[in-house]
């Protein structure tokens, strides 16, 4: 018994050297997840992840990888060390994006076909609640205090504020066409919602009781790029709440927003059809998925510069990085 534990620990130590993190990328067309070492920036593994994997997240302890296998109508759960599929969670049809409670339980899943947000217990694997929302629910964000889950509905064009206490919608805010993603600032006082077809990021002030007030809509403009192609999708905010990074889809750029001024300060060239974003835990790097060039771009967060691109599987979609 002692020897067994020792062996396991040894293997684990070899498999995951200190400091390096694993970057997990879903490949929507390739039906795989690519694993990248954030130290060497080499692809160390590509494993099967069900049909049409899109949304991806990881448990707070870094052990479980959640992948929305959209064409399997499942959220598949993988071991982040062995890459083995452990089980799947009931999700409702066509899961695309989800968000985990900071504690790791439950998971809140957007079901586009049924106009529902499904709340699933990650331990008992049961559905806790189904919350009717607007048409084609998509983006899922959770407030840092975990009191609010915000869902965006792509055809209704709203951000729905769901209380995690009673699963009731308390606020609805109209935003521009086809809202894709919702992200709170780290201090919870701002909410960013990207509108892909509207071409804007809506920024809301969030009061202490969770009440949202529209603060500003940020537009994008870039010489030589058709305004129609400036389509904001994924968005991330640094932990110091100074910078927001916005993936602009077919414009092949990530915009950098100064959060205090709420102004775009820079556009960083990435691969083609840049979609979702994830920071490394130290926030030195931001990784972007580029669906039409089959690669990810690594951005130096402090310098606002793209430093590297790494070839992954076919049509990368989502990305998550293992925690420290």
């Amino acid at each position, binding site marked *: 018994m002692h020897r067994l534990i020792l062996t396991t620990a040894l293997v684990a130590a070899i498999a995951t050297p200190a400091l390096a993190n694993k970057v997990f990328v879903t490949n929507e067309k390739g039906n795989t997840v690519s694993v990248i070492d954030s130290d060497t920036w080499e692809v160390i593994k590509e494993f099967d992840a069900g049909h049409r994997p899109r949304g991806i997240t990881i448990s707070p302890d870094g052990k479980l990888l959640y992948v929305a296998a959209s064409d399997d109508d499942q959220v598949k759960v993988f071991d982040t060390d062995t890459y083995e599929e452990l089980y799947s969670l009931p999700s409702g*049809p*066509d899961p695309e994006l989800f968000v985990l409670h900071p504690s790791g339980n439950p998971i809140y899943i957007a079901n*586009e*076909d049924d*106009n529902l947000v499904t709340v699933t*217990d990650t331990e*008992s694997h*049961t*559905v*806790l*609640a*189904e*919350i*009717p929302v*607007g*048409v*084609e629910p998509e983006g899922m964000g959770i407030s840092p205090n975990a009191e609010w889950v915000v869902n965006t*509905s*792509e*055809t*209704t*064009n*709203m951000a*729905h504020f769901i209380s995690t206490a*009673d*699963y*009731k*919608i*308390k*606020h*609805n*805010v*109209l935003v*521009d*066409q*086809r809202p894709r993603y919702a992200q709170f600032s780290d201090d919870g006082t701002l909410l960013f919602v990207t509108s*892909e*077809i*509207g071409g804007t990021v809506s920024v*809301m002030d969030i009061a202490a009781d969770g*009440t*949202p*007030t*529209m603060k500003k809509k940020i537009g994008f403009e870039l010489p030589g790029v*058709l305004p*129609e192609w400036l389509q904001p999708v994924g968005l991330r905010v640094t932990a110091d709440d100074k910078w927001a990074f916005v993936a602009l889809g077919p414009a092949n750029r990530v915009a950098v927003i100064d959060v205090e001024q709420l102004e775009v300060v820079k556009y960083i060239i990435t691969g083609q059809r840049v979609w979702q974003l994830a920071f490394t835990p130290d926030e030195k790097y931001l990784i972007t998925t580029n669906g039409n060039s089959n690669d990810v771009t690594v951005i130096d967060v402090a310098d606002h510069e793209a430093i590297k691109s790494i070839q992954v599987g076919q049509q990368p979609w989502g990305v998550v990085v293992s925690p420290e």
Partner: protein
Amino acid sequence: MKLLRIMLAFGMFSCLAAGQALAVDVRAAVFRIDYPALAPISRYDLVPEDMGFAGAQLAQEDNATTGAFLGHTYELETVAVAPEDADAAFDALLAGGQNLIIVMARQDDLLRLADRAGDGVLILNATAHDTALRDDQCRANLLHVAPSRAMLADAVAQFAMWKKWPKWFLISGSNPDDKLLADAYRTSARKFGAKIVEEREFEDTGGSRRTDTGHVLVQKQIPVFTQDARDHDVVIAADESDVFAPYLPFHLWTPRPTMGSAGLRPVTFHAAHEAWGATQFQRRFEALTGRYMREEDYQVWLALRVIGEAVTRTSTNEVATLRNYVLSDQFELAAFKGVAVTFRAWNGQMRQPILLYDGRITVSVSPQDGYLHQRSPLDSLGLDLPESACTAFD
């Protein structure tokens, strides 16, 4: 653990950024004239009884779901009539207070109904392609969700030019609509620098579309009909009457691609389209109606979504306010085609990408890369402001 299903109640519409939400009741109607028609050449084109209405049903659900968060309710009425009963049935709609009406009818009927309705009524044309309706025959109370023949022909022309297929062999039918479509292709050729090197008319001699021997005679007739044409890159078929175009691919004397009414066809939508989130839209439609979506369904869905979006943003059911909003720069609507659809303020035509469809998949989408325009690349399709003789919107 017990499954909780939390139902939404009306009155849940607190805290809207747009300000205080007020209850708005929206009524809209879809009015369809059913013309006598021959069976189509392909069984895949058989017309379902709920054509258009199925799209209306989905739009009604979408609008009602959104409206539930705002205190807006939607009510839908659908009417299908024979041409001879159209005026009376339309008058009954007007007498019943309907003032937002989607019409599926031919040009002459559409214009007569729009004139009957007058200023207080907003009509959305869901199916008539006549370019004249966006030109000298335009009406202030008539908006067009259906693309014009000019837009459809331009969509094909841009793709042909992108492929470097500038030499066209135009084959058109002998019926009036076929001739109008052929005119649209001639205009597009001039607009985008293609050359029609050969033109032939395929005469509609009547008779049934289907026979027990099927392809046997066609296989002999079409090669003969298309032989000795001047050197061309592509065959363009203008056959709105569905008389001959499906016979052209594979039976041509000179092996060339076919575009237009057969081969690669310009459409607003088709049931295999999946890009830009369309899959979820297709699945919602199929779950609701039990069949695949047709262009007519998409166009009626889109027309009702135009109304829904305008109501959502203006919180009113007032026709003049809705019309002004729809024609303004503020209006935009996501329509599963990658960019927002909007309206041309000079003739009430919806700007929209046109899908190029081979019968199974989306092959391409026009406008093509590189066709730029000072307003929007979408304005490279159809009548631009200086080209349109429409003055009703001035």
